[in-house]
């Protein structure tokens, strides 16, 4: 049986169960067996009525959703890599959460890059009104390859979506990704954009906010060796009474370079917008470079928009304080770097991801030391 067939079978079965529900004792076949206790037991009996497929399967299973949403948000005109993806994508992840559905467990999607290949992953996440879901996209791989991913996320009215992107690509890989978010009225969207690997990395995270929305774009980038990581974000306040929060933190070591470019557009009608953007950078080496640039375009007159960027080094006083209490130099340094980064990590609402990130961060710092040791 092909994956698409199985998916279709399950979909039809789910519909049957949804229509009929648990049998009762009015049902002749179940006259003497009351299964109400099972239904009341509060156990996760039926899988949520959520469709989670490969995009290719979804083309057959949900043609109407594909027609309605795919390629409607990410722009082929403004970003050539989106055009490249749209022209060439073969597959990706598709997630549809119908309205008023709470998905308790986070959905993990893993992508593995293969040496010698270019892959254009195309993901579509459609979340219905009043629903709630958390999604983790992770990118890893080995060797020299090119990832060119596009994720479109549609957040329905009053829905809550948290999205984590973990970029842990191989040291020789190229990673270009666009996350395009469309927020309907009163919805709440949070993105955590974490970049730990890759040789050349560019992330574009863009969100369009409607009336009463809350949009959060957080990010963390750790660069070392010859890595280059560029994060471009764009928040489009298209309607009034929306709030956006943005916190990006970067830690640069070796001869690496990073870019933060944060665009905030407040359209003419978007009165009472409240937008806050912060970018903080910790530069660990003399050869590391950070370019940070806020780009605010405010066309409404009754708004609050703040932005700030800092670039600093490790606090020598704090380092000495820790060492004077017996904590070794390397451990003290790592502890201060972690303290800097955890601000972003702590904001991730999925405990398992927070733990994972904590570990990944310390591993990355160790890698960084190995690189520095090899270079000297």
């Amino acid at each position, binding site marked *: 049986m092909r994956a698409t067939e199985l998916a279709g079978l399950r979909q039809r079965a789910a519909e049957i169960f949804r229509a009929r529900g648990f049998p009762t004792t009015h049902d002749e076949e179940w006259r003497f067996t009351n299964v109400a206790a099972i239904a009341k037991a509060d156990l996760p009996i039926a899988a949520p009525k959520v469709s989670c497929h490969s995009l290719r399967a979804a083309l057959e299973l949900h043609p109407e959703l594909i027609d309605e949403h795919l390629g409607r948000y990410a722009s082929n005109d403004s970003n050539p890599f989106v055009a490249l993806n749209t022209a060439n994508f073969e597959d990706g992840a598709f997630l549809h959460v119908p309205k008023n559905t709470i998905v308790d467990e986070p959905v993990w999607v893993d992508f593995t890059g293969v040496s010698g290949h270019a892959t254009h992953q195309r993901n579509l996440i459609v979340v219905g009104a009043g629903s709630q879901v958390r999604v983790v996209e992770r990118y890893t791989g080995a060797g020299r390859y090119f990832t060119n991913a596009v994720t479109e996320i549609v957040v329905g009215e009053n829905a809550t979506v948290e999205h984590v992107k973990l970029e842990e690509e191989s040291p020789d890989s190229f990673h270009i990704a666009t996350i395009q978010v469309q927020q309907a009225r009163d919805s709440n969207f949070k993105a955590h954009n974490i970049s730990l690997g890759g040789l050349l990395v560019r992330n574009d995270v863009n969100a369009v906010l409607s009336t009463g929305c809350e949009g959060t774009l957080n990010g963390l980038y750790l660069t070392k060796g010859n890595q280059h990581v560029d994060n471009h974000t764009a928040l489009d306040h298209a309607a009034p009474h929306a709030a956006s929060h943005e916190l990006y933190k970067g830690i640069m070591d070796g001869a690496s370079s990073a870019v933060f470019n944060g665009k905030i557009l407040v359209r003419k009608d978007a009165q009472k917008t409240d937008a806050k953007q912060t970018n903080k950078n910790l530069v660990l080496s003399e050869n590391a470079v950070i370019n940070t640039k806020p780009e605010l375009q405010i066309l409404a007159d009754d708004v609050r928009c703040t932005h700030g960027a800092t670039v600093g080094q490790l606090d020598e006083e704090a380092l000495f304080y820790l*060492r*004077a*209490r*017996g*904590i070794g*130099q390397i451990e003290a340094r790592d*502890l201060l770097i*972690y*303290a800097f980064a955890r601000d972003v990590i702590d904001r991730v609402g999925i405990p398992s991801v927070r733990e994972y990130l904590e570990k990944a961060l310390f591993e990355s710092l160790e890698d960084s030391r190995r690189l520095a040791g090899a270079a000297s």
Partner: protein
Amino acid sequence: MGGKEILRGINLTVNPGEVHAIMGPNGSGKSTLAQVIAGRDLYTVTKGEVIYQGQDLLALAPEERAQEGIFLAFQYPVEIPGVSNLYFLKAALNAGRKKKGEPELDAMEFLSLVRQKIALMEMEESLLNRSVNAGFSGGEKKRNEIFQMAVLEPRLALLDETDSGLDIDALKIVSNGVNTLRGEDRAIVVITQYQRLLNHIVPDYVHVLAEGRIVRSGDKSLALTLEESGYAGIEELAETAQ
């Protein structure tokens, strides 16, 4: 530091069980002395030696000195946002234990030790989960220093102006904490500008530091003399000693 000579003649022997007070006006080099002993690399020692338990202290990194039992209560405790007091203390305590070949304390043992010591300093337990010194008042920071000392149980404690800026209640709590820690195998050096502290922590010896030199040493009565005559006379003494 910056090519400036700060300390120019310190001859001091501190034995286990003793409490020494080093007094002196602003800029006399008191804090520099404490920082040099703790291993701050802002200062270069051009001459002289510091022998601690028979070994050359100046050859050790700051963390090694701490692991060997040296503790500096900072004049200006550093705020470290993002590092919890509890995590910090546990890392510090276990670093010392590891050095001594003792097993690391598990979470329960550590917590019970910490609870006992925090009660001694009359501090709220909620402080443990807050970031190190972040948002603490001046008095809370100083109390936190002595709390750390109580947990780490050093062999040589240097208290750098721990009394400065404390009101009388906080001063009593801090002094009581320090007095509880006095003992046969622990030496304490109290650095202060004010005689007031020495009413609460009574020293065995008092030394007067001026212009980078110890110009007078004596017992606790020296502090009282100083309180009456002020540091002016001492500075003259330093000049005549040159």
